[in-house]
């Protein structure tokens, strides 16, 4: 369904942020994208949603397709009309607008007859948004703002939802809740691309995962496979990458999982 093929991205003239990244997302699947800061995770989502230009970035090679339609030649509005929605990093709710108005903005690109059902689903998933509908979004807590950001994207009844670090800055209990919400959204038939630094949560809720390192696809496989991988455990699940350098033992050759062919 969503296919990313050999995508390379550059910011300005000098910064190569992604190199030949390829993977795909099947219907109704949750794919986690893991990686440390600066690995290119958010850049990857921007390349899919065609918002790179807002950050002075461009796709220099490769393609992104959704059900066979090239997305990298479209503008963000045209991609939203194909029901591919992104929840950006840092929530980015419209703080001076009310919760209700934020949801209205989210539903602008949806077919009018679908809006009422989409709103009912959002209120069912996030009852707090119904309670606070007249409140300015900027006054919500961090967790509530994240729910609003996700709810706003769901107003378009997306077939693919891109989530950029939804757990960022949230308390552990809320992180677990966000994980459950991702599972619920996916149960409704929406495919999810989940960019996360919290690998533990991401691997729990996803079917498959990819790991980006300095703009390159380093690992790919099923979530269970990656969760069991020494590399992922050491780097993302509580181990420390620097441990190896602190011992005098010779560096072990890195174990590479089989390249994921999608």
């Amino acid at each position, binding site marked *: 369904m969503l296919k990313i093929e050999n995508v390379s991205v550059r910011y300005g003239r000098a910064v190569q942020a992604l190199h030949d990244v390829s993977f795909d997302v099947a219907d109704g699947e949750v794919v986690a994208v893991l990686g440390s800061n600066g690995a290119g995770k958010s850049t990857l989502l921007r390349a899919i*949603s065609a*918002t790179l*230009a*807002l950050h*002075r970035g461009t796709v220099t090679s490769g393609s992104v397709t959704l059900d066979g339609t090239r997305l990298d030649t479209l*503008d*963000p*509005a045209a991609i*939203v*009309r194909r029901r591919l*929605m*992104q929840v*950006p990093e840092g929530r*980015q*709710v*419209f*703080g*001076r*607008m009310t919760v209700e*108005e934020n949801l*209205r*903005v*989210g539903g*602008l*690109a949806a077919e009018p007859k679908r809006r009422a059902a989409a709103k009912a689903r959002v209120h069912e998933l996030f009852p707090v948004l119904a309670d606070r509908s007249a409140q300015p979004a900027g006054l919500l807590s961090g967790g509530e703002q994240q729910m609003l950001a996700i709810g*706003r*994207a769901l107003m*378009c009844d997306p077939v693919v939802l891109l989530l950029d670090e939804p757990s960022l800055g949230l308390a552990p209990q809320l992180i677990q809740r966000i994980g459950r919400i991702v599972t619920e959204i996916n149960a409704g038939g929406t495919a999810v691309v989940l960019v996360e630094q919290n690998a533990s949560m991401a691997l729990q809720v996803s079917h498959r995962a990819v790991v980006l390192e300095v703009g390159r696809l380093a690992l790919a496989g099923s979530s269970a496979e990656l969760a069991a991988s020494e590399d992922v455990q050491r780097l993302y699940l509580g181990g420390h990458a620097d441990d190896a350098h602190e011992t005098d033992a010779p560096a072990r050759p890195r174990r590479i999982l089989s390249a994921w062919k999608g």
Partner: protein
Amino acid sequence: MSTFVQVLLNGTGRGAIYALLALGFVVIYKSTEVINFAHGSLALFGGYIVFALKPTLGWLGAAVCGVLAAAALAVLIERVLLARAKLASQDSLAILTIGVDILILTEITRRLGTASAPFLGDPYQDVRLRFLGATIEGPELFALLTAIVLIGGFFVAFRFSTWGLTMRAQSENKEAAALMGIRSWRVTASAWALGGALAAIAILFIATLPVAGGAGLTAAHTIAFAAFPAAILGGLTSPGGAVVGGLVVGLAESSASQYIDNDFAKVAVYLVMLVVLVARPSGLFGKVEQVRV
């Protein structure tokens, strides 16, 4: 007492005109974050079209054409010049609008030639209204009524319509708005069209007023500059602030003109602006930039 009422009426009438100009200026700034120094030229262009078409179409037909032409020119400036300079900073784009302003002003002044100060010959020129011993002149009265209707309509649309929703979303967060499927160029173009139309409507009243600097089209270009302090007073990002700023500028000008000196009236509005900015650097209703440290 009647003098004071007269000052209030004059100030409010002029303030309504400045409010129209400042509102257009702020709408453009909110959508693109570009300070449009060509705003006076948009007004001048609209006025020139009215002047040129009035003999054939009559005042009303020419006025409609003038407003539409100014809106079209504004969209043209945005689409052809600003939108193409994708990598330019907002400051560079503001400087670009200065160039546009000089070009339009020079060309229209050349075309007007000896008729450089034509009145637009409005149908309300001889209308006068007496109120508490004071008189409000036709242009100011009609400017006030027009401003009330247009500004009221703007705020209703800005608050409740889909256009207003997309406009507010884009001005708050361009990336999030794009991710919601809002077509940025449509919002931007509509903002410039509205700004151009409001500027042209304002000149229908300015060009008939005997104000400081003379009267007529080219003088109106200079007067339109009073929209800058009006918008800055209000806070540049606040449409409500632009209206209040316009009224403050109008009242400051008429009070200074009545109680101090006609020449002092020209600078009084800028003095008020300086005092306000010293006390509130982001204007009366401007967004205060907060940075987390």
